[in-house]
Each structure stands twice: as C-alpha cells, then as structure tokens.
C-alpha cells in the first residue's frame, strides 16, 4: 500500500512499576543480559505490565485520526513509539514521511534564552533548518502573539505565552505526519481555536494527523475517524461519533446493583413512534423512553430527571425535572414511558436519567448517558434545534401608483 504513511503492526510495549536497578546487584546481571541480546520474553515479571498490547493500525495519507481513551490507556506511549522516543518490545512500526511529534509544547525551552533564541533552538529540535526558521520567524511570532516580548528571556514569560510560542513553532513546521498529544489544554479559548484551525489546515492540505485529546469536541471537529484505547488495547476504530459513544458508555458503565436500594431504574429502552427499539431518529419525530421504576419512598419528594446531551461536545440540549405522577402511597415497581420530541439536528446524542430529591438535591439514581441515539437530517443545516422552517409565498397586490 503506497499511501499508507504509518503502519503499526501488533505493537507491544512493556513498562516497569517502581524504581529500576535498585542496587548494583540487580543492575549488573541486567546489563549483561541485555548486551547478550537475549530475546524479549513474553512473560512479565511481577513489577512489569503491558502499556500497549497488540495494537495495530494504519494511517493513510491525508487522514486525520483521533485517539481517545481514559488516562493510562497508553495513548501517549503510542505516540512516543511512533516518534521513536521509545521502541516497542514486540511488533513493528513503519513510518513513511517526515514526522513531527508535539508531545509537550515548548519541551526544551531554555528559561535563560530569549523567545527568539528559543524559537531557533526548538525549531532545530523539531528538525527545521535555520534557513526555514529565518523565513518563518515572523509568522511564528505573530501566530503566538508575543511580538513585543520576543527578545525577552523566556523565564519572564507567562506560562500561557510559553505554551503559545511552543505550539507556534511546531505549527509552522512542515511535516507530512503530525502527531499531537493533548496540547490544547493550554492557552485561552481564542488560541485553542487558532490551533484547531491550524490543524484543520494541515489535514485539508493532504497531510496526516494523529490527534490525542480528551477534548471530544476537538476530536470530532478535526478527525472523521477515531481510535479508542483502553488498558493498552485498541478497543475500536471507527467513525468519531460511534467511537465517542463507545468511549462514553465505557466511562459510564451502569451497574444496576450499585443503585440505591429503595429507588431503582431498570431496563431502559429507547423506542420510536411505533414502539420498536431504535437508535436512529428522524428530526421532528417523537421518541419514547421506556423503563421500570421501583420506588419505595414517598414519590412526591422526588423529581424524575431527564437530560439530553450532544456527545461530541457535551452540549446540554435539554434538562428537565419532572414530577412523578404517583401517589405517595405507591409501592413497588412500575413501568414508565417518557415521550419527547426529537427536535434536533444531525448529530449523536445521549440520554441521561436520574432521580433527584427535591429538598437535598441528592440523586439516589444517576444513569448518565444510559442511551445513545443519532439524528439524521437530510437538508443542509447546522446547529442543535430542529425548528422546521417553512417558506410560504404570498403574492403582493400591486396597487395603483401613488396611493
């Protein structure tokens, strides 16, 4: 495959917990064994663990791939392997093209040097030549917005300024493959947007991006496809909304037994107008949430909470506190149905159900993102709310001139 720029084949990476080489007694045999090039064994010693297990994927030219997953899933390890900072214990990685990894913005900034000197140094570390930097320094400085301070030592910069300058240097590299690891956490909203725009420009100009972030909105804006890592394994790779849904359902694994004893919600189903289970709705239809509620306490003390969120950016679309239509004498389980309008535009949404105490706001039941559904809207539109615009034509009566 000629257009494959990154090929990761069954990559395994082992790490060790705690300190290594605690004493000379351990260290010397280790070194000898290593020099003798003993083959890597599959077995782990007590203190070792797999940071990455059998990860395989390919990145095509011009593709933007998101990588999401909980902390400690191995995302950064993967990036360090791709950028050759680390080497895998097993498996192979082939990279075809000039690769720049942005693992920490401004890594290697020297505090005593001025902004300008650091730009040259950082550029060289990332693989730019002095000529290239000479040509681009104006742009770099302008992008970072530190024109006035460029000849001031970096130690006098605010942390935001350092981060902006660091990103700016990397953003003006000309890589064929860009690896980015959670660098949007720095800088203000405006700068974050600038970074995203810059990366989108990269993606659109036929270069490949691997983008690691916890910012699901950024991932979904930038990457059509996303890979989900957990405990060092690649759980899935697919379209970004699908992967995010899978990720969120992992994060909010709903354990029924953990619900409070006296109030429980079970068997949540999402139904369409015909009463069939459904996860894909047309805008403007009605959806029905069916579930079993068990409430052994005075129902009038509680609200039933219902919320809709757009999953790609956590945007709260609806949040209702509904009175339970039950007598206080009610005992035992009941099947409930909750109807709502799918007045939503194209996107992936999640349903949250909870029961909240009216006075204490305590939520004995909280089922965050228990169900997901997609809305497909054919016409060209953007936003969240389906407002059913209609055009009507009304012929104007042309009256006699002058009146």
């Amino acid at each position: 495959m000629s257009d494959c720029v990154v090929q990761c084949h069954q990559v395994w990476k082992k790490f060790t917990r705690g300190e290594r080489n605690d004493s000379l007694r351990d260290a010397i045999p280790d070194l000898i064994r290593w020099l003798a090039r003993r083959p890597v064994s599959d077995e782990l010693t007590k203190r070792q663990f797999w940071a990455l297990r059998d990860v395989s994927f390919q990145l095509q030219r011009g593709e933007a791939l998101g990588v999401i997953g909980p902390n400690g899933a191995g995302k950064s390890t993967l990036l360090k392997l791709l950028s050759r900072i680390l080497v895998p214990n097993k498996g192979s990685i082939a990279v075809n093209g000039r690769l720049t990894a942005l693992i920490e913005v401004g890594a290697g900034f020297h505090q005593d040097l001025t902004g300008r000197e650091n730009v040259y140094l950082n550029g060289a570390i990332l693989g730019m030549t002095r000529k290239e930097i000479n040509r681009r320094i104006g742009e770099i400085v302008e992008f970072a917005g530190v024109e006035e301070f460029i000849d001031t030592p970096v130690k006098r910069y605010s942390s935001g300024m350092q981060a902006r300058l660091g990103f700016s240097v990397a953003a003006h590299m000309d890589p064929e493959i860009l690896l980015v690891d959670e660098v949007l956490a720095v800088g203000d909203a405006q700068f974050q947007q600038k970074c995203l725009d810059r990366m989108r420009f990269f993606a659109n100009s036929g270069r490949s991006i691997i983008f690691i972030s916890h910012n699901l909105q950024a991932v979904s804006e930038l990457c059509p496809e996303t890979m989900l890592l957990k405990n060092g394994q690649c759980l899935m790779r697919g379209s970004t909304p699908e992967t995010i849904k899978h990720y969120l359902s992992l994060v909010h694994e709903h354990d029924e037994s953990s619900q409070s004893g006296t109030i429980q919600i079970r068997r949540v189903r999402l139904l369409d107008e015909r009463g069939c289970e459904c996860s894909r709705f047309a805008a403007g239809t009605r959806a029905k949430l069916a579930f079993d509620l068990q409430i052994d306490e005075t129902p009038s003390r509680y609200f039933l909470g219902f919320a809709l969120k757009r999953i790609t950016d956590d945007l709260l679309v609806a949040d209702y506190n509904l009175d339970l239509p039950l007598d206080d004498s009610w005992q035992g389980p009941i099947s409930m149905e909750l109807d709502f309008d799918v007045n939503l535009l194209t996107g992936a949404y999640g349903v949250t159900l909870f029961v909240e105490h009216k006075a204490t706001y305590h939520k004995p039941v909280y089922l965050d993102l228990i169900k997901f559904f997609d809305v497909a809207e054919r016409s060209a539109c953007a936003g969240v709310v389906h407002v059913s615009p209609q055009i009507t034509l009304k012929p104007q009566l042309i009256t006699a001139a002058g009146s």
Partner: protein
Amino acid sequence: MFRELYEYRELLYSLTLREIRVRYKQSLLGVLWAVFVPLAMMLIFTFVFTRALKIEGRIDLGGMPYAVFVYIGLLPWTFFASSLTGSVSSLVANTSLVTKTYCPREAFPLSCVASSAFDFGIASVLLVGVIGYFHFTTDWSFQFHATLVFLPVVLMVQIVFTVGMAFLLAMGNLFYRDVRYLFSVLINLWMFVTAVVYPLESWRPFCNFLINLNPMTPIINAYRQCLIYGEWPLSLPFAYVAVLSVALLMGAWVLFHRLEPKFAEYI
C-alpha cells in the same frame, strides 16, 4: 548513525549555541570569562610552583618559562575537563528533551564538547599573548618549528578521545547517577597524574610506562613538543593514544547507539 547525525547538524549547532549563550548570560564580562579563567589558573599555578614551592630550577622544562609550560598544559586540559563535566550530566539535564522529543541523543554530549571547544578557541588566542610576553620580556625566545603543522592532528586525537569519554559518561550517568559524583572526584585526581602542571618523567622505565598509559599525558606532551620543542610527537605513547582514542570512540558510539532506545525509559 553518521548520516542521521549529519541530518541533525543544525540541532547540534543550535544546542552548542545554547550552551555557549547560557553560560555567559546575565554575566557582566560575558565571553571574556573564557579568557580570564585559564589566565587566572595560570597565574595561580605559576605563583604556587615558582614563588611558593620554588620548583622552577629543580625540574626540567626544557628552558621554557613555567608560565608558558603550565598554560600549554592547562589549555587542552581545561578543554578536556570542561567537556566531560558538561557531558556527564548532559542527557540528564535535558530530560524533557530526551523524553518528549526525538533527536539523535549524541547531540547532547557533542554539544557540550563543541561549546568547550569554543572556549578553548578563545583561550588559545591568549596563548599567543603569553608566548609573546615571555618572548619579548625574558631571554627565552620562541621559535617557529615545522612541527606546528602537526598541532591539528594532536587536537583531533584529543577531540576523538574526549567525545568517546563524553558518550560513555553521559550514558553512564543516565543509568546511574553515581557516575557524576565519581567523575567529579576522579577528574581532579586525573589532572595530577597527567603532565598538566608539572612534567612527568621518570628514570624507571616501568613508571614511564604507567605514566604514558594515561592517554592524556601523551596528548598534552604532544602539544608542548609541537609548539615549543619542535619535536615530532611520533613516539609510541602518542601512537598508542591515537589508536586507543579511535577505538574508544567507535566502541562508545556503538554502545550509545544500542542503548539509545532505553534512554527515555530509564532516565
């Protein structure tokens, strides 16, 4: 190995520039310190050995003033020692670069050697002044010898040896921080078993053999031979050092290259 390093020559240049800049940032005299420090060392040793210990008449300097003798020794020695002092902690001092970016890690110790070479170059200019001073104010006179052309060879041998040592020390200190402490003690001892501040020669052949086993002694002797005595340093000790240096550099580099993938994990 070579090609990759060549591709990253800009990085090497930038890192060296950084070392030099950082060294003289926020100092009033700046780069003049590169001249003052060896000059001050020369004055101290000259005072101690000629005024305090009155050793001048008792040792054979081949007619050369002690100040010239000691300066020619201190110059390459300072280059050697400061290169290694920088290199030993060069990888550890750049932890964030080693763990967060990819570049040939050789660049870190190499940039330390290169920035020390810069100081060496500046301090060498002063050597002309020192020689000139003694040439015109004392009855000792400096003569140009054809052997001067051999100086670059001596310098090359020294650099090759230094880089080999720098690789080993930087790598050693990355795995075991003991190396730095051990080094700071040994480098002082090393100076006194090398013919830096006094000539080392013995009438017993076995002792001579031991003295010349230390690679720095033939190197520093070779500087004096080429510069002042007009002798070609084509002796057995120098040949041994030249071969040893090349072998050391090759071995150290290969080892460095093989252990490099472990650096980010073990640092």
